């Protein structure tokens, strides 16, 4: 009991504890390129259980779980309100933990948990919550797996990335009722169920970051979208990694992915390989590839006949019309090099 009406449940889990298929030690692995981290960084995972999902000032968090991986183990802290009167003290305790963290990891926390905690803090007239940099894993998960999975709920991520199947888990949607029953004086079995559920959530958050990094390195074997993975690498300046990810997935890329591969290849100076991809795509009627080829043959190969062939596949827009006219003029002027 940290204060009246707040119970703190604190657990230190050894690093070899298994969470799904993997040990918790994974949580110490770096999060690059999802977040820019350096050795010794303190990553804090956070998840709340609330009185409802509707949002607005009338929705409160009655439980907050945080977890930090340290060399000695994963430290899990869960605060549970036994009455509304403990809310201010719980938020104070959370604030001091947040001050000590360098990065906060959540799942949909940017739109749900943190705004809610901020609103409740305001209702308590407490000082603003300290907020370290925030990595919300929902967004990269969606980018990488939207096409592959039926949904991107936390339970789905756990199953596919961590191999964790929950048994006897109290569904999150039951949590509000469990707490209401507890307030009404019901035995706290259900609330204990919420505690277990929340603990699994927070541990999964710690483990999911490194798992996502693995899937970024080898998207094909994890069933992730290689195109999206390459985009994440490219945004962090890792062009070589972006290229290798795309090349490894070459056979599985859709048209957009193949265009991206060609773009990265051209950027790396491997223009003829890029052209080969465009040709295959243009053969399937892809106009963007045709446009690339028209440009390639006009400006790189200076083969105006082929350039015009591709230009004719393009739509009727003013740019395409202009290109066709210029090429026709160039052809009409013979082989000479026109300098327009």
């Amino acid at each position, binding site marked *: 009991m940290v204060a009246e009406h707040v119970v703190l449940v604190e657990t230190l889990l050894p690093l070899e504890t298994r969470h799904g298929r993997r040990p918790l030690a994974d949580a110490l692995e770096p999060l690059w390129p999802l977040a820019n981290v350096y050795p010794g960084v303190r990553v804090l995972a956070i998840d709340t259980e609330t009185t409802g999902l509707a*949002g607005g000032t*009338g929705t409160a968090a009655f439980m907050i779980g945080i977890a930090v991986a340290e060399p000695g183990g994963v430290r899990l802290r869960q605060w549970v309100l036994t009455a509304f009167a403990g809310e201010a003290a719980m938020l104070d305790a959370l604030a001091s933990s947040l001050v000590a963290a360098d990065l906060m990891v959540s799942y949909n926390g940017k739109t749900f948990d943190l705004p809610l905690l901020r609103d409740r803090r*305001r209702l308590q007239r407490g000082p603003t919550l300290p907020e370290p940099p925030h990595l919300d894993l929902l967004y990269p998960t969606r980018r990488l797996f939207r096409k592959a999975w039926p949904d991107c709920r936390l339970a789905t991520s756990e199953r596919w990335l961590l191999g964790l199947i929950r048994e006897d888990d109290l569904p999150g949607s039951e949590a509000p009722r469990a707490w209401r029953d507890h307030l009404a004086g019901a035995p706290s079995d259900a609330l204990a169920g919420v505690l277990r559920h929340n603990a699994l959530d927070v541990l999964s958050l710690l483990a999911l970051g490194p798992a996502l990094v693995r899937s970024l390195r080898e998207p094909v074997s994890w069933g992730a979208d290689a195109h999206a993975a390459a985009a994440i690498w490219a945004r962090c300046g890792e062009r070589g990694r972006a290229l290798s990810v795309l090349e490894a997935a070459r056979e599985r890329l859709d048209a957009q992915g193949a265009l991206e591969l060609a773009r990265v290849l051209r950027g790396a100076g491997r223009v003829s390989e890029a052209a080969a991809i465009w040709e295959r795509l243009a053969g399937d009627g892809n106009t963007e590839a045709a446009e690339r080829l028209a440009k390639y043959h006009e400006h790189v190969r200076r083969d105006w006949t082929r350039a015009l062939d591709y230009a004719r596949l393009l739509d009727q827009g003013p740019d395409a019309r202009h290109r066709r006219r210029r090429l026709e003029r160039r052809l009409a002027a013979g082989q000479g090099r026109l300098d327009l």
Partner: protein
Amino acid sequence: MMHGSRQAEAVTVETGVDDPVQRLVRRLSKRYAGRITGIAVLPERPARLLPLPEELDPRLATALRSRGVAELYSHQREAWDAVTAGRHTVVVTPTASGKTLCYNLPVLQAALKDRAKALYLFPTKALSQDQVAELMELNEAGNLGIRAFTFDGDTPGDARKAVRTKGDIVVSNPDMLHQGVLPHHTKWAQFFENLRYVVIDEMHSYRGVFGSHVANVIRRLRRVCHFYGSDPVFVLSSATIANPAELAEGLIGEPVTAITESGAPAGERHLLLWNPPVVNADLGIRASARSQATRIARMAVKSGLKTIVFAQSRLMVEVLTKYLKDVFDADPRRPARVAAYRGGYLPGQRRETERALRAGNVDCVIATSALELGVDIGSLDVCVLNGYPGTIAATWQRLGRAGRRQRPSLGVLVATSQPLDQYIIRNPDFFLGSSPEHARIDPDQLLILLDHVRCAAFELPFRRGDRFGKENLEELLGYLEEHGVLHREADTWHWTEDSYPAQSVSLRSVAEGNFVVVDTTRGRKEIIAEVDYSSAAETLYEGAIYMVQAQTWQVERLDWTGRKAFVTRTEVDYYTDAIDYTRLKILDRFEHQPDGRTETAHGEVHLVRRIPGYKKIRYYSHENIGYGNIDLPDQEMHTTAAWWQVAPEVLAECFPNRQQALDGFLGAAYAMHHVAALIAMSEPQDIGRAVGDGDARWFATVGADGRGQMRSLDGGEQDPERETRFRPAVFLYDNYPGGVGLAAPLYDQRVRVVAGAVELIRDCGCRHGCPACIGPILASDEARGFSPKAAALTVLAQFHSDDAEEPA
């Protein structure tokens, strides 16, 4: 309205003998003297001007001068003095008298000097757009750098944060405040901490149920403000009603200073009360109001006068528009001179019509009350009311649409054959002499109050000793606690339910969402209109002819759950009108006056409304050319009612057969309904009427032959002689779920309701009954062997008897 255009008008207009409005008035009074039952002329009124306040920020004064305003009208200056002294203020002024300056000046001053914030609430989106445009003109003229943002359902998600934190003035509506702002007040903390003024424009529209809800939203707003340490001053503006200060005080729960004398100039105004000529003396049938309204509008437009015609229903707007377009817009190659304006049109269409009106490109507009509010359409010369709008206040508001500052204008009230219209038109002194109605609200109506106690508890926990409304708050909180909505801890009630209560509370009684009308002609898929839930059943049934700007579509399919009606273009010579069955069951008697023979009572009833079919009515001749069936879900509600019931033995003594008794009840109900609306000072549609046994075993309607029919639950016709329990009653019910307190006053005034109905029927000039007393009767009734009018009076005599025997 700024008065920048004042000088321009003064130069071009000269009031003289040759004024076209005066000429039209002379022509109408000469040619149609017999139809005009009352004339009034309101003299021209000069401007009363006062200097700009000395403490006015120089930037603001410069902006005003650059817009041609060097002095203020007296009411604008009075408003400044009251508001800047920190007094809640309501300003009551006619259309186009510069009311917006009354609140814009103090608001801008506070924003410039102290970066204080203001919240503007308008009842509709269209209005808020107009007012923001005007505010921004002043802002630009003075380069004031004030930021005004609109926050409503159309504000994109990524712009909302900027509105919350950067807006000096936030423009919204009560619905958005209720559902989108207050439940998220922590996000608006900065705004509420600095909130100095709350402006409530068009206050008169917050009456009845809507007003009762809004008063509670304001209670919540003030509660949230107190949490953030602010206590804003309210500035309200209103069209003329009898009790502006009382309504304002009811809405904000504090004493309010009322400013009621306008200092703006007004031109001479003519008013004619017009009764259509009698075309069949025996049946008391008069020419239709629409034929008269069309004629007057035609003459006005031909005289080069900008004209507005107000109709009572959307359907009538379309019918009148067609008639006037047939005259003025016969050539499709020319730009339209006639336009329709009503609820249900898409916002874009309405904006376009408003622009055309302001620019003077349209000569005649036909509108519903949608235009009654302060939508800026510029000034017009002639206003024709097709039917009495139901209240004196609404009549003056609509008439106010015609009238320029220094030029005569004309208003014509054309009576329909409805009893209320006929009463008003035959007693011109009643209309010209009475003050407008009181606008009433009942913020402590239990259902409404409870809704908002829930919303308020969600926003901030209640503590023991808190107040919210006049009822015992702790009892309400206890009730919510029992139902698991709130949880009490020591002296505080916390919200614990997994819900967002504002979502399920609609401020307007129509909660269930609008229907869209989708044009599917030739494979198209285009939304052409929206219809609110309450009128969907009677306008969008399959087979209905739906009209927009007098073009006709037929409803092919109605998707009730998906809230969509699919229509195709069609050319027909008729329109459709729905038939409506209502049956009632008495659940509880609160008070009653039984004497064994008759019973007068009020209490709770359960009501089921069914729309079983529709009539096809031919244009111009208005003959009935067919019927169609409608298959729609019943609409149910619990509400309160007053009723008058007579025992079977008594009826057997008074009537030779039950058919006559039934006709008598239907006639009496018709007259009582209209008298009740007058007595309750409400709009007739706020009160519903029904005839039945009060047990939902049977109900009565007027059949296609004009005679009363007794119907069973499923709508099947029954023989009244075979009914074992023939105890008919007249019900007047509160047409709002739960009731808003209209039934109890009707019970208290039961003697007046019956006496008024007797007077209305007895004094009517017709022989056997007409639409002006007991409702329309058909020619064949001559042959029915008894007078329906006499039957209605016999029924009313029975209602009268119980109270007549009472000691005074």
